[in-house]
């Protein structure tokens, strides 16, 4: 499988001197395109820090990061426009959907291609197609506040996917959802990873979804340890899991 993301010896130290916090002490991991991996670890072990480094939100202290065949960090940023990097190469999914409250569902998703310079109509067409694929197409004209929690999270996933980024970083995306919906979201992300050939890293505490990962990284005190979970099989179509609550919404 082609390379999605590789991290070599990534170190992140917050502050310096006596107050320095060694959040990452040399992390190594790699995720292939089309693969979904879990990242677990106790609180304060450096999971969010790792995602922030990879998402170019904060700068690592040292190490090397590669996305696809592009080296983005090698003891210093290798890309000039980090904003464009975030926009074009990385999709973010957060614990809460964080949709823009004053834009309707379509434009929340279409905003990214628009920011990248796509004409409005083309961007909206892309958004509609993706929302349909995620089974929220019928809510395309609604405002975020009118959606259920699960629908909001699917819109957030659509937003992360719209620019077809090679990498998606999800920080506890299932935290606010109950067991059924949490599994549905993971299944959906698995579907999307394959459909769009995307490397996805999911940070989670969620016991229910941990067994679904084919590969799992366990991070302790800033160092990753790879583990292979026992694995449970996912339903054939992930979207099927949403059907019950979608049907409810339609009523």
């Amino acid at each position: 499988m082609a390379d999605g993301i590789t991290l070599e010896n990534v170190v992140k130290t917050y502050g310096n001197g006596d107050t320095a916090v060694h959040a990452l002490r040399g992390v190594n991991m790699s995720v292939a395109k089309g693969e979904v991996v879990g990242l677990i670890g106790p609180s304060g072990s450096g999971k969010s820090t790792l995602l922030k480094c990879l998402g170019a939100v904060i700068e690592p202290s040292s190490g090397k990061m590669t996305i696809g065949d592009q080296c983005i960090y090698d003891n210093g940023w290798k890309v000039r426009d980090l904003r464009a990097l975030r926009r074009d190469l990385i999709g973010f999914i957060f614990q809460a959907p964080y949709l823009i409250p004053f834009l309707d569902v379509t434009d929340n998703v279409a905003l990214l291609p628009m920011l990248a310079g796509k004409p409005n109509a083309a961007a909206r067409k892309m958004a509609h197609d993706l929302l349909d694929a995620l089974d929220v197409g019928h809510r395309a004209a609604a405002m975020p506040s009118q959606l259920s929690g699960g629908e909001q999270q699917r819109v957030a996933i659509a937003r992360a996917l719209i620019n077809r980024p090679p990498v998606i970083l999800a920080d506890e995306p299932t935290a606010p959802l109950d067991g059924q919906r949490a599994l549905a979201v993971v299944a959906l992300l698995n579907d999307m990873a394959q459909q769009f050939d995307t490397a996805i890293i999911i940070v989670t505490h969620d016991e229910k979804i941990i067994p679904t990962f084919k590969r799992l990284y366990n991070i302790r005190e800033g160092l990753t340890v790879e583990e292979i979970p026992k694995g449970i099989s996912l339903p054939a179509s992930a979207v099927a899991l949403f059907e019950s609550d979608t049907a409810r919404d339609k009523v």
Partner: protein
Amino acid sequence: MISLAGRDILHGWGKFVLTGVGLGLLIGVTLSMAGVYRGMVDDAQALLDNSHADLWVVQKDTLGPYAEPSSLPEDSERPIQAMRGVAQAAGVTYLTMQIAQGDKDVRVMVVGTEMGEPGMPGQPTHLIAGRQIVRGHYEAVADIKSGFAIGDRVKVRRNFYTVVGLTSRMVSSGGDPMLFLSLKDAQAAQFQKDSDAIVRQRARTEANPQLNPPGNPAVAAAVNAVQSGSTNVNAVLVTITPDADPDIVANAIRRWQRLTVYTRAEMEEILVQKLIANSARQIAMFLVILSIVSAAIVAFIIYTMTIGKIREIAVLKLIGTRNRTISWMILQQALGLGLIGFVVGKIAASLWAPFFPKFVLLLPADRSGAFLRSC
């Protein structure tokens, strides 16, 4: 690309409009304050404009006739009239007094003007109804602000005058409406003594052997006649011929007539710098504070508006929105607020301006200033 600012405003337009209206009322107050200040200066200028004079000739070494009392003989106008460069010269009297209007009192400035030929300096201009004074006696032209109507009878001192014409914007430097009388009537009103005073005056004259030499009663009669009437004026207003230079003519009058003369520019300086200086400065000071407070409130509104959206802004930045795009969004909203505030402020200020007792001059420049400040 869609307009983020526009969408945000549409999403919460009620709050946005309310904020804008609140801001507008504040701007309205600031505009009115500026209007009050301008109104004061404009009243002073209107007084000068409406006198139609190029030069003011007043009692020697006084700042008359508006800022200090000034009195000079009516016949000083004749030699002035004869000087080179002088087109017209006319005596004028000013007297501010309370007069009855219906069952209330109004404060007016009684102006005595020469009615000899039309267009003499000092005559009422801006006639909006009726006609000028044509009879030598007992006719008046009133400013509309006094509340009088054509045909009303106005009592000034002992005599009644009929209002034959109405003017607008003819006010004293203090904003009191003018009441024009013929010079003779006004002199009578200003200088005439009441009967008791005349009786006492006569008694004093008769008791004074120098004014009442024994065996020559004609002397006392002559003295009394001189004392009872007055042919003084407060100033002589002069217009100059088109080719003359006001400073040169003023210098000539100063030299030959030994009187104090002010040009239009000097008179304006006296009015603005001396007469209304303190009250204007008071208002200007208030205006400065009000502007600072408005600016602080505007800054605060924009600050809270931004802080309220901090999470959306963080998300926008994370998904790759340029800082410029985000600043532009905030700026556009500030401009939008400014626009609403400006329109509401302008309307509010124009609505309540007529209820001010004195003239409030709202200038477009002030409004654009307020608009710019509010952005």
